């Protein structure tokens, strides 16, 4: 590792007018970025702004169409990550590249040639040293498959440190962490910064960027909007740079008196993918006009809960009464008929990509799609035009769904479900992958349904979203309800502990 006292006259890495095109999309256009030793540099932008593309170029994973990379002032060419690693660049990608059956140490030395035995010792030393110096605690002999996501991320960072990187790129590192893990990560990054490393911190979450970074570069549509000292801006300013105009404030959540119970889940249990128990004895009720948020680190039963409530997975025990109808163990058809609107976590599993918007909009109610058995194409089209207008979907009725952007795909799904004014709504990760505008739209639609008296179960991995929308929260851990919290009194620390499996007493 380079000492902190390096000459500050040249940046460690400088990117000059980097451009990269994918088909019609200019993912990066004339991007300049300099990274100095001892700084945390935030790269901020909406989904699709080009952050990942830029970092893949810096890490040699992707060859730019134009522009240069300078390392310590000298022109460099990265044909592969090997070259970038050689120049002292390390990257923790959004999806980890770890070998699950191997141990932490083995993963760390993987890809390095030379005396394996020596390396193993050195790696172990490093793991221990890193724990002391940077607070990166992991046990060297544990298998990767036994580690939590947060621990796996630490292994990725260790891997980069082992390769003696001077520049560490973290692509949306907080997306998968609990609040406590985020705090620990920030502490580690603070210490790495103090040791003179240049750190690139990618995020689209403003508070994190404000808290952690020294400088920040905002990308929009592949171009740099501004690079500034973080001290000189506030979150609102950054947000308006990200979207290109002042961000719309979220609609204030009006207080509403919850009505009668519209969804009653009792003693619900289910098994997951590998026939392992995924839900155990889950109990909750949701009143009309209420949003119940379901929090939890992913993989703790939210997916299965959504599937069971949607009729896509049979529970092994328990009852689900939706608007007076027992739907436990019923298929999608009966669940829809019982007045349950379903918006699943993977939009592509609810819509047929190779079919038109119009046909997808009618798919849940085919009995209304025809006169006798013949398709009523005029009616299908009229229905589509109506919904496209009401939900401001940017597409025509005959466009194939797969050609739409994520935000518009989500709107098609919302339109199909919400137009039925369902009494109960089961919705998972409604804004995942959407830009700020589409996110605000989707959240406001959900709030509108709440005002109209729908009972809504909302699963989300985005804690801010849960806190913003929910009236009450339950936290799932290992398929059980680890705690119940009133959203108005919810405190992130307490939620974080519950998400990490500590019970309510803690």
């Amino acid at each position, binding site marked *: 590792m380079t000492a902190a006292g390096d000459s500050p006259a040249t940046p460690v890495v400088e990117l000059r007018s980097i451009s990269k095109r994918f088909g019609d999309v200019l993912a990066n256009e004339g991007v300049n970025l300099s990274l100095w030793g001892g700084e945390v540099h935030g790269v901020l932008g909406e989904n699709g702004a080009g952050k990942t593309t830029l970092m893949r170029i810096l890490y040699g994973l992707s060859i730019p169409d134009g522009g240069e990379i300078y390392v310590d002032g000298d022109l460099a060419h990265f044909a592969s990550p090997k070259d970038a690693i050689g120049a002292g660049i390390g990257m923790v990608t959004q999806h980890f590249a770890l070998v699950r059956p191997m141990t932490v140490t083995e993963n760390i030395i993987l890809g390095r040639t030379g005396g394996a035995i020596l390396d193993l010792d050195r790696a172990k030393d490093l793991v221990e040293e890193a724990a002391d110096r940077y607070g990166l605690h992991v046990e060297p002999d544990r298998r990767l498959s036994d580690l939590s996501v947060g621990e796996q991320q630490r292994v990725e960072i260790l891997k980069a440190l082992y390769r003696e990187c001077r520049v560490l790129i973290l692509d949306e590192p907080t997306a998968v962490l609990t609040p406590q893990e985020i705090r620990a990560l920030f502490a580690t990054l603070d210490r790495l910064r103090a040791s003179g490393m240049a750190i690139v911190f990618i995020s689209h979450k403003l508070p994190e960027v404000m808290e952690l970074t020294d400088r920040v570069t905002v990308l929009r549509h592949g171009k740099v909007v501004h690079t500034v000292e973080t001290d000189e801006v506030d979150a609102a300013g950054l947000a308006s740079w990200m979207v290109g105009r002042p961000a719309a404030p979220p609609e204030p959540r009006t207080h509403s008196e919850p009505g009668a119970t519209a969804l009653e889940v009792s003693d619900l249990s289910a098994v997951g993918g590998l026939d392992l128990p995924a839900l155990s004895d889950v109990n909750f009720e949701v009143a009309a006009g209420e949003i119940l948020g379901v929090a939890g680190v992913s993989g703790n039963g939210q997916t299965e809960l959504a599937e069971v409530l949607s009729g896509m997975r049979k529970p092994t025990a328990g009852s689900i009464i939706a608007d007076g109808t027992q739907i436990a163990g019923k298929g*999608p058809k009966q669940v829809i008929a019982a007045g349950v609107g379903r918006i699943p976590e993977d939009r592509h599993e609810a819509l*047929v990509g190779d079919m038109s918007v119009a046909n997808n909009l009618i798919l849940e109610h085919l009995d209304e799609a025809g006169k006798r058995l013949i398709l009523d*194409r005029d009616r299908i089209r009229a229905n589509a035009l109506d919904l496209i207008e009401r939900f401001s979907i940017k597409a025509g009725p005959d466009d194939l769904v797969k050609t739409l*952007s994520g935000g518009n795909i989500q709107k098609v799904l919302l339109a199909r479900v919400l137009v039925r004014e369902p009494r109960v709504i089961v919705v998972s990760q409604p804004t995942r992958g959407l830009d700020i505008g589409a996110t605000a739209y989707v959240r406001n639609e959900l709030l509108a349904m709440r005002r109209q008296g729908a009972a809504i179960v909302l699963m989300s991995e985005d804690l801010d979203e849960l806190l913003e929308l929910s009236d009450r929260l339950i936290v799932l851990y290992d398929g059980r309800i680890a705690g119940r919290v009133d959203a108005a009194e919810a405190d992130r620390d307490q939620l974080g502990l519950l998400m990490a499996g500590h019970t309510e007493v803690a």
Partner: protein
Amino acid sequence: MVKWRRGATTAGLILLGTFVITAPFIMLAGANPFAAYGEFLVSPLTSRYSGLEVLVSSIPLILTGVSVALAFRAGYWNIGAEGQLLMGAVAGAGVGMLVSDQSRFLVLPIVILAGAAAGALWALVPALLRVKMGIDEVVTTLLLNPVALLIVTALLSGPWADPETGFPESERIAESAQFPILVPRSRLHLGFLVGLAIAGLVWFVLSRTVAGLQVRAVGSGPKAARFAGISVGRTLLTVALASGAIAGIAGASEVSGIQYRLTGGLSAGFGYTGIVVATLGALAMPTVVLAALLLADLNVGAGSAGRVLGVPSQLGDVIQATVLLVTVGVLAYRRYHHKVLKSEVEEAPGEGAVPEVEEVDTS
């Protein structure tokens, strides 16, 4: 429309590829490839008789092509049209030998229905295995093809062998069970109209009915179809039986329209050629019919090319086999290309896999 243009490029690619690959063989056989292709494709259309023969040999290909295309549209990979066709032929011949001089108007519908029922029955078991137990239908439908041929052979070498000659051929079916000839002094029979009617019917059902919308949804997005409350299993079962029935009609039509008896060599692999036809026709019924006509043209042309150019008439088979291979290759490439592109997009931008370049108003 885009779909049409894509289909046309696919067909163009396939034909070009076939020409390039087969040209050296034609030259080895001592002929000019352009002249040979002219002979293969154009000359059959230059005389009344051979033109009508093209239509005659298109009949089983239209039917098996539609059968396979229908199944494929639902994502049911029926490779068993050959066996279903043979069973349809057995049933058609059985009815034809039972009846005597009843009215044609009574007998012919029975012959066709019997063929359909036998084909559907032959398709039933693999369909049930797939729907109830998730057993891959590609293997089961394919494995039943030789079984069907064995049944035909067993019948012809035993109970149904010609009582006079002892040849492995059934006795002639009754006159009333024979398809009428549509054009005098030709072999063009009722089966041609039956084939066109079925192609039209399947087209109508798929594109204009609620059930057809269900089939298409199941075919292009089984998960989303299930999510929307469509019974995927029932849809697949229905489609599999319909597909088997159409292939069965192809068999009955060969018996009643051409052979007038059950013979072991009644199908020149029509069930397999149906896969080529369906694929070449991009699974859309109008183009499937065109593809069947094209292959029929090639079949007829291969015969005369042999005589005229002195090339072996097996070149026709070589070309047809090449069409099949190139078709499969082009489709596999398409699918591979599609997947690779998709996975690149998925891998690179993480959760932002779908480009978000729109400006959304936040009102």
